[in-house]
């Protein structure tokens, strides 16, 4: 029996949900809307008596102080100028409210409820045209990838239960021609090239059989750009055309640049680098910390809330899956969007409007981060037209673990245990999908790749895993990210082999094929390796807190990946082929030095208008409205908050968090990102990003002696030589700069194929590097904040300003890029950084702010208004080299510069 229950606010209660929707509709320029009402719908099925349903409504679903309910209400009367839109989840999409509602019903002592599906109903009043209503629905109220509009007369909700009949299918590869191989790759959305398909065909020819669909899919996932990073690990023929052309062969870009820094520096405090799900460094005598930043660009382009939601959910599982598990203690989020005021009429087909993308992404991060109880303490938001259709969503998490829990080791005989959420049909093909370009058809072809998260499921899993860790109940752990069980089990068993019974994996609903179970990317799952003698105690820890954990197989010594479904062998692959069989291809890369128009700007007499325009620039303006939506204080460790100053509204350069309450030690986290410099020279973009991330650490009282950095490259297609050429040049900038500063990379990630194509015309995002820095601070009481403290104190400009306005925001005000990109003199920069660290440690610095976007002008303004003070400076006293013009001095974007406030008596 199906009951439809509607809950709405009592008359006279301010309906905040409806109020927000109305505001959004008005934002679209649809002024005819007069009012909006919101109704929460629960569709409950089960063998329930009428009194039981009444009790569920009165005692659980309705807040009787401010809400009313109705059971199976008659359809709303059709009236002129009144439109009813009911939005429900598509079949198979996880409804995050179902589990808690069923629990609530069972707590009432009612046993007959079988399923709960929620829907949202909006009553919109106003004289709207059909096309206006369609705009409201399509652009605001629902996303067809995960939701649908319920037809008024539809008989309740659709269910996701379908039968499944086992049927082993294989793919005819043995006799396939080159053309056929490519067709198979395309049809199966495998994103494998001919070389790779041929290698697979040859492997199976030797075995004298065709692969099963599951085997082919497993190989495609393992070999995907997303999982194997073949661009960074493969061979590149690189030609650099700056003055004259030079060509060289790079065998493994990652090894030749990023990892080489770490190897050469060989810091004793680097515990585990480039091996595990996150890089690990030393914290103190008892603990290590780890840090990882990921991207979730493609899913966020299609479903911003769900994409960002599962993006942050996914990166939280990285520290949790590092070593034997780390407790996450901070998040960082950096986004690049199209301009929020971009005209609708100019949007490319299939692309969501940047404002909707931004709202969805911010809400997605807010929902997951806040519910996980992890403070979001650092971030940045940048804007450019080239991010329309392909936004960048970087999410990072740092975790802390006891030192003896920093390494994992799987042994043959250990059981394979899957913990957390159940497996469903969500997120099929995510790994391969993100290894291709987005097109205007992506939203129909790849809808399975989009999911929504369930943060409470992940929180329960986190709580229990850490308990099991502290009781030493398992020997290895990893997360189910892209590629699902396939990738997690494949990685863990790489050296040994595993035998897995896919029918033992708990499912959200019946009807999944063995292959779907294997590659599903359902969220909130981890895989553990548990010694057999500890399995009872392990399962009890999870059972105590209602977390599902199931033994699905065993690690073996066979060096084979053997998958069974109800005793039928559905996959039997050699681990060696799976992990080492990927043919190395040589990619072509060409870097040609860019040449931009030099803007002709006269130095204005009065610089105030330019400064005001810069402060209002989307990249520079206050992000307070976003920051306040994240809980940045939870866990109680916040020492230097993202917002500081007399009114708590000044932008901190970096954040400081105490992961262990009561200890004086802290962790500083910062980031450097500036894609605009990449338009001129990706080498100096890399140098500038590293300088920015490091000088922010210095600004808050930190020091270079223990700073680790992460690289995140978001780039266009590496199959196009110009994109790859710029990527190589950028990686070279990373190498030279990081080595000079003595800061090792400990982990990183690349997201390639960030291109958006409409009808075959492809455009790439600006190649964007994010540098995230993390540092251990011995005594957080030495922290320095950016807001001006006291009238009468002296203001110093530290570091030389050059005539470097290429890629600056000052040039951007007149639509120009220019060529004089800011460079970094690492030797001089390091000297300045070290001196400032010493001054902070001695308590000589009252406030310090780094000069970034908008140069000295913006930095001084921010210090002054967040301190509630004014500042007098003499531009003629600023150390400067180049054509001395006041606008250049004030707005040049040179690196390695700071403004420092010092009390007069501490001048010496």
């Amino acid at each position, binding site marked *: 029996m199906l009951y439809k229950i509607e809950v709405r606010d009592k008359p006279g209660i301010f309906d905040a949900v409806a109020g927000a929707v109305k505001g959004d509709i008005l934002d679209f320029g649809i002024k005819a809307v007069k009012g909006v009402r919101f109704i929460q719908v629960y569709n409950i099925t089960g063998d329930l008596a009428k009194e039981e349903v009444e009790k569920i409504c009165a005692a659980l679903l309705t807040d009787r*102080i401010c809400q009313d309910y109705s059971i199976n209400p008659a359809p709303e009367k059709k009236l002129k100028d009144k439109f009813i839109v009911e939005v429900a989840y598509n079949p198979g999409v996880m409804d995050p409210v179902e589990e808690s509602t069923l*629990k609530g019903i069972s*707590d009432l002592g009612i046993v007959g409820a079988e399923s709960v599906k929620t829907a949202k109903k909006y009553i919109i009043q106003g004289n709207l045209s059909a096309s206006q209503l369609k705009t409201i629905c399509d652009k605001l109220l629902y996303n067809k990838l995960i939701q649908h509009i319920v037809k008024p007369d539809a008989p309740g909700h659709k269910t996701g239960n379908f039968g499944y009949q086992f049927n082993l299918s294989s793919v005819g590869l043995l006799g396939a021609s080159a053309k056929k191989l490519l067709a198979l790759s395309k049809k199966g959305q495998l994103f494998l090239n001919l070389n790779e398909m041929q290698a697979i065909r040859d492997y199976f020819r030797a075995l004298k059989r065709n692969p099963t669909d599951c085997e082919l899919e497993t190989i495609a996932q393992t070999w995907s750009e997303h999982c194997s990073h073949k661009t960074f690990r493969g061979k590149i023929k690189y030609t650099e055309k700056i003055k004259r052309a030079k060509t060289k062969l790079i065998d493994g870009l990652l090894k030749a640049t990023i990892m080489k820094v770490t190897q050469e520096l060989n810091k004793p405090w680097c515990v585990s680098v480039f091996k595990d799900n996150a890089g690990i460094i030393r914290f103190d005598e008892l603990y290590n910390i780890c840090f990882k930043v990921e991207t979730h660009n493609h899913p966020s382009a299609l479903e911003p809330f769900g994409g960002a939601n599962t993006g942050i959910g996914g990166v939280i599982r990285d520290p949790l899956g590092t070593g034997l598990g780390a407790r996450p203690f901070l998040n960082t989020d950096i986004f690049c969007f199209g301009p929020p005021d971009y005209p609708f009429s100019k949007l490319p087909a299939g692309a969501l409007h940047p404002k909707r993308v931004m709202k969805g992404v911010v809400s997605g991060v807010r929902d997951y981060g806040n519910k996980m109880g992890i403070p979001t303490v650092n971030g940045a938001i940048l804007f450019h037209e080239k991010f329309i259709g392909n936004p960048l969503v970087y999410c990072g998490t740092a975790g802390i673990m006891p030192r003896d829990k920093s390494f994992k080791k799987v042994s043959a005989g250990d059981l394979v245990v899957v913990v957390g959420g159940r497996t469903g049909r969500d997120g099929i093909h995510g790994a391969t999908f993100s290894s291709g370009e987005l097109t205007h058809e992506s939203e129909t072809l790849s809808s399975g790749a989009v999911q929504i998260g369930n943060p409470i499921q992940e929180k329960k899993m986190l709580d229990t895993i850490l308990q099991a860790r502290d009781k030493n109940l398992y020997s290895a752990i990893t997360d189910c990210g892209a590629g699902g069980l396939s990738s997690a089990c494949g990685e863990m068993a790489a050296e040994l082999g595993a035998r897995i019974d896919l029918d033992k994996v708990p499912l959200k609903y019946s009807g999944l094929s063995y292959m779907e179970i294997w590659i599903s990317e359902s969220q909130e799952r981890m895989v553990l390796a548990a010694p057999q003698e500890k399995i009872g105690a392990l399962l009890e820890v999870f059972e105590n807190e209602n977390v599902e954990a199931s033994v699905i197989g065993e690690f073996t010594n066979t060096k084979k990946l053997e998958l069974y479904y109800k005793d039928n062998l559905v996959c039997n692959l050699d681990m060696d082929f799976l992990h080492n069989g990927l043919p190395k291809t040589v990619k072509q890369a060409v870097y040609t030095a860019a040449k931009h128009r030099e803007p002709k700007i006269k130095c204005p007499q009065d610089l105030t208008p330019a400064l005001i325009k810069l402060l209002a620039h989307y990249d520079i303006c206050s992000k307070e409205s976003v920051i306040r939506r994240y809980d940045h204080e939870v866990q109680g460790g916040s*020492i230097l908050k993202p917002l500081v100053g007399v009114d708590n509204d000044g932008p901190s350069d970096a954040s400081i968090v105490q992961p262990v309450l009561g200890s004086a030690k802290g962790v500083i986290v910062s980031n450097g990102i500036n894609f605009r410099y990449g338009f001129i020279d990706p080498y100096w973009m890399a140098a500038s990003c590293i300088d920015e991330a490091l000088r922010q650490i210095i600004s808050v009282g930190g020091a270079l002696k223990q700073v680790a950095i992460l690289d995140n490259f978001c780039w266009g297609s590496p199959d196009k030589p110009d994109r790859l050429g710029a990527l190589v040049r950028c990686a070279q900038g990373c190498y030279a700069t990081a080595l000079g500063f003595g800061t090792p990379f400990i982990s990183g990630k690349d997201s390639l194929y960030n291109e958006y194509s409409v009808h075959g015309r492809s455009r790439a995002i600006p190649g964007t590097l994010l540098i995230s820095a993390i540092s251990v601070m011995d005594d957080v009481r030495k922290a320095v904040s950016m807001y001006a403290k006291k009238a009468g104190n002296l203001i110093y400009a530290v570091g030389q300003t050059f005539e470097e306005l290429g890629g600056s925001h000052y040039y951007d005000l007149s639509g120009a890029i220019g060529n004089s990109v800011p460079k970094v003199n690492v030797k001089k920069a390091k000297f300045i950084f070290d001196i400032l660290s010493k001054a902070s440690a001695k308590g000589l610095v009252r406030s310090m702010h780094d000069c970034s976007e908008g140069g000295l002008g913006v930095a001084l303004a921010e210090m002054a208004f967040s301190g509630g003070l004014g500042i007098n400076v003499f531009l003629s006293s600023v150390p400067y080299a180049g054509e001395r013009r006041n606008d250049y001095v004030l707005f040049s974007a040179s690196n390695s510069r700071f403004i420092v406030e010092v009390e007069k008596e501490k001048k010496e």
Partner: protein
Amino acid sequence: MKNVKVCILRTAGINCDQETAFAFSKAGSQAELVHSNDFIRQKNSLSDYQILALPGGFSYGDDIASGKVFANELKYKLEEELVRFIADGKLIIGICNGFQVLVKSGLLPGNSTFEQEASLIINDSGKFEARWVYLKNSGKCAWTRNMPEVIYLPVAHGEGKFMVKDKSVFNRLKANKQIIFRYGSAQGEPSGYPDNPNGSLDDIAGICDRTGRILGLMPHPERHIAPSQHPRWFNLKNKKEGDGLEIFRNGVEYIKKNL
């Protein structure tokens, strides 16, 4: 009583348990994290504790409404234990989500029948907001004796707008001096948004029951224990401790003296 035992009650989605335990141990008590299943499955007993703390978080994801599912769990699965705990003269504090749970289970403002008489609903801004607020302290409550008139604590919630069933409930709250904290300016005067971050009736940020032994509040005292948690501690280097610590100390001292 010398050794005060505090139960920090956890369940799915609670996430301020560790720092709440830290605050109680700083205040001189022995704080233990206990999952609600341990009481329901009788592996542990509430009667072993003298203080029950319901920490912040998103119990059961705040699905349906904030705190609702957890409130019902307490009400339908642990009612007897709770009634006995209160009758024994022990203390309860609910912070943020814990306050929502206390209100939705009917423990606050409190009557004999566990009937819900007030609520905490979506902020007028329609948004989750994290910010620091000034609170004016008034009323009569075991948790807030000897407190300065205005304290400074952070809030972080999306559903914190306090409202009551009808005027009589509000009048009773005032008459019994059950309104303990009100949002306001740095001087403690009513000053509207954003000082009142959610649009609460009469700027109410925290209330207690008629006995003064059960306190619920939206702001987070456990996030202002050390002076360095204050957003402007750079200007306040002589501050000895955070404004929130006294609340926990009051609770612990009350038990030491009265039980």
